[in-house]
């Protein structure tokens, strides 16, 4: 069965790019969220196998969303998508329960490697 993914990023450009990379690799993108609050709501609704999560977003950022999602589902698999220079925030996200991270701007192969690791 194809794994399902929820893509969370405030920039529609980045959401489209991540969705395209994953769809082309055979994943099913079941939803998109443009902030952490939406990600938490859609996680409950869609129960995806994987969430890709931006860090800096309006309303609710990615780290808070990771905390809330892992509280709802300790088995949640979340991959952080961070920009360069956000190492401290990546650490915080990993402590909050995220499984792995990729740094933007990313190559499709890097994203897929990280996704495989998180789903393994």
């Amino acid at each position: 069965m194809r794994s399902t993914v929820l893509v969370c990023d405030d920039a529609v450009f980045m959401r489209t790019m991540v969705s395209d990379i994953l769809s082309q690799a055979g994943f099913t993108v079941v939803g998109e969220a443009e902030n952490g609050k939406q990600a938490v709501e859609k996680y409950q609704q869609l129960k995806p196998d994987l969430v890709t999560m931006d860090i800096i977003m309006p309303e609710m950022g990615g780290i808070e969303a990771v905390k809330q999602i892992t509280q709802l589902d300790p088995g949640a698999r979340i991959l952080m998508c961070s920009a360069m220079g956000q190492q401290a925030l990546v650490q915080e996200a990993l402590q909050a329960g995220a499984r792995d991270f990729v740094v933007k701007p990313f190559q499709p192969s890097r994203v897929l490697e990280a996704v495989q690791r998180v789903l393994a």
Partner: protein
Amino acid sequence: MTIPPDAQSTDSGTTLLSGARLDALREVANIGAGHAATALSTLTGTRIMISVPMVNIVPPGDFVPEIAADVEIVAVRMAMSGDIGGQTVFLLATAAGLRLAERMLRRTRGISPSLGQIEQSALKEAGNILAGAYLTALSEFLGMNLMLSPPSFTTGDSAHALRALGDHAPHLESPILCVETEFFLEEPVESLHGFFLLVPNPSAFDAIFRAVRVD
């Protein structure tokens, strides 16, 4: 406006930079352009090079003279904070902006009829990458801490688009740094032309150029 190598001051009395200092700033801009090109190449999956043909200091009261007032442009603005306050603006003609957006989205030429939500988002990302790369190079060179806000997007004729930047519009009370930026893209080969403006708060301008200690 290009500052000739021997120019030290203008009629306004503002001390501008010697040719050597401008060269130093252009070198910094070139380093930033290299980083931005690497990031954009990764993002678009094609080879992109960025060159900096010219770095100018535009004196107070003057605006970017290379861009006529009635040209349709897109502008991506970001607020700058940290050791220096101000803003950065990435400007290019709308036609070039649309093309850059298509390349960011890996689309063929002419597929995007207008600047919709996704094209605007792509250009904001390009502006973000460019401003981030230029400011990282500048902050390393100056030993200063510089940060950027999330980008905002404006479009219209250049006079309107710059006015629409609102309180953040270049006040022209102090000189601004104008970095002419030329993108060379491959597969298919084409070039796009834009400007990166660094608009420091009036009080911050001197801080930058005091720090450029090249004699």
